[in-house]
């Protein structure tokens, strides 16, 4: 039995062209006319929607924070998705742009904004083009001025304050908070930053209400979610499933594993490794994964096969995360760099002595940046040392690793660090 649902990913064309405005209205119906702001905010709260960008902050709380500010407000739709193993936001932008744009309109109404910007990565040219023509299709009917902005293709660019900096013409680097974006964001204005999947969900809640939204999912984590599944599965890709779906069912939906699985990365590069047997017994919810030391995050999931050298994969991603530091906070710059170097030597079987040092350094980088980059990277690396403890010993003994570097975990090539 299929576990997929099609709330967001509805009416997709097999030839890959986006759902146009006519088809979109036929599939979902029009957005309801002006609902008063209070009822809209109440509906979002009752739905239990949490942000879908990874942090999982309650959407209603964020909306109310911006709605309660004085001054001219702005909505920033975050479609940057700088995380290599995640593809769900690009799928939304590329195939169902009107659902995202509806969500932008709903959010703008909820907070009282008359302007909005959809931010995408500068190399997401196809997505930007689809958005452009979608905006042209609806120009007449739009109640909010919506623009598109392209920001540098970096991991950190999707962080709220970095995104605001980048759109304002600065470098895509986080700033120290407070002030948070809802207080002072783009051009100093109260800014709602919301992931594009969150906005698409908002577009459905505005139409169908909170009771409908909660018909699937779990009590605590209702609704559907997009999951990017990759690695050793037959049909890797983006799936829409109810929250709380057993991970095993999702893997079956993707045609099952291509070879025996060794471990599963949940929550992407800010997430955690779990033993395959452990992971396959869990559900896709923060509650289930969290109890086992994992997290759902932005729901990028990678199944690592047994025939793969886990340490080579972890070393490559550790280096990538160190290189993707915004380069501002000492512990992140120096700590992640030093850690990546030791992980590389562990992978090459040079010595095991480094492991204790890495564990101490992980404690030292966590919580010590202006943003969550060092924390996310530390969680990824710490869980790798736990789950791949046997591999670390094996490598240190000089035993030849049976696994190959299959490059299951994608990274962007190393960029030249721009001068400050």
């Amino acid at each position, binding site marked *: 039995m299929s576990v997929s649902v099609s709330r967001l990913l509805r009416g997709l064309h097999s030839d890959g062209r986006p759902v146009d405005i006519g088809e979109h209205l036929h599939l979902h119906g029009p957005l309801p006319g002006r609902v008063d702001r209070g009822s809209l905010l109440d509906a979002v709260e009752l739905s239990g929607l949490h942000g879908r960008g990874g942090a999982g902050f309650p959407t209603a709380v964020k909306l109310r924070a911006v709605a309660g500010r004085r001054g001219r407000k702005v909505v920033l739709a975050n479609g940057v998705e700088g995380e290599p193993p995640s593809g769900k936001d690009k799928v939304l932008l590329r195939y169902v742009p009107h659902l995202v744009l509806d969500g932008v309109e709903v959010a703008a109404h909820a907070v009282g904004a008359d302007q909005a910007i959809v931010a995408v990565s500068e190399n997401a040219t196809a997505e930007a083009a689809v958005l452009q023509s979608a905006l042209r299709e609806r120009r007449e009917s739009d109640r909010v001025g919506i623009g598109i902005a392209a920001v540098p293709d970096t991991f950190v660019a999707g962080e709220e304050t970095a995104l605001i900096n980048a759109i304002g013409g600065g470098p895509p680097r*986080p*700033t*120290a908070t407070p002030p948070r974006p809802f207080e002072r964001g783009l051009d100093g204005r109260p800014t709602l930053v919301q992931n594009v999947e969150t906005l698409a969900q908002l577009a459905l809640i505005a139409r169908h209400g909170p009771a409908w939204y909660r018909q699937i999912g779990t009590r605590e984590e209702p609704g559907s979610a997009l999951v990017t599944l990759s690695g050793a599965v037959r049909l890797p890709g983006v799936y829409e499933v109810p929250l709380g779906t057993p991970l095993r069912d999702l893997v079956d939906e993707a045609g099952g594993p291509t070879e025996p699985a060794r471990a599963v990365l949940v929550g992407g590069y800010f997430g955690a490794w779990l033993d395959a047997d452990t992971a396959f017994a869990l559900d896709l919810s923060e509650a289930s994964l969290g109890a086992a030391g994992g997290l759902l995050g932005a729901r990028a999931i990678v199944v690592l096969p047994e025939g793969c050298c886990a340490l080579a994969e972890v070393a490559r991603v550790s280096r990538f995360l160190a290189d993707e530091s915004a380069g*501002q*906070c*000492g*512990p*992140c710059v*120096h*700590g992640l760099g*030093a850690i990546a170097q030791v992980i590389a030597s562990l992978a090459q079987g040079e010595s095991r002595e480094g492991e204790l040092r890495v564990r101490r*350094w992980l404690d*030292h980088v966590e919580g*010590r*940046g*202006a943003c969550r980059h060092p924390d996310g990277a530390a969680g990824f690396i710490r869980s790798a040392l736990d789950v791949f403890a046997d591999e670390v010993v094996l490598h240190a003994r000089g035993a030849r690793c049976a696994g190959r570097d299959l490059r299951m975990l994608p990274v962007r090539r190393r960029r030249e660090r721009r001068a400050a």
Partner: protein
Amino acid sequence: MSSRLRVNPIACDGHGLCAELFPERVTLDDWGYPIVDGAPIPRPLEQHARRAVDACPVLALRLQVLTRKD
């Protein structure tokens, strides 16, 4: 009204004066950046804290006054 020490990690350049002036609450990591204990500072130590804040060459350290909410 008590207070606690906060560091702005972007501004901090790891000069390390704070750790020298206020070792009760500030230690340095392996790269020379301050690890700040953010617990409320008892009155007798406030003078030390203030000295550390004033000595920071890049103004990365500050005393945050704690309200009941914190």
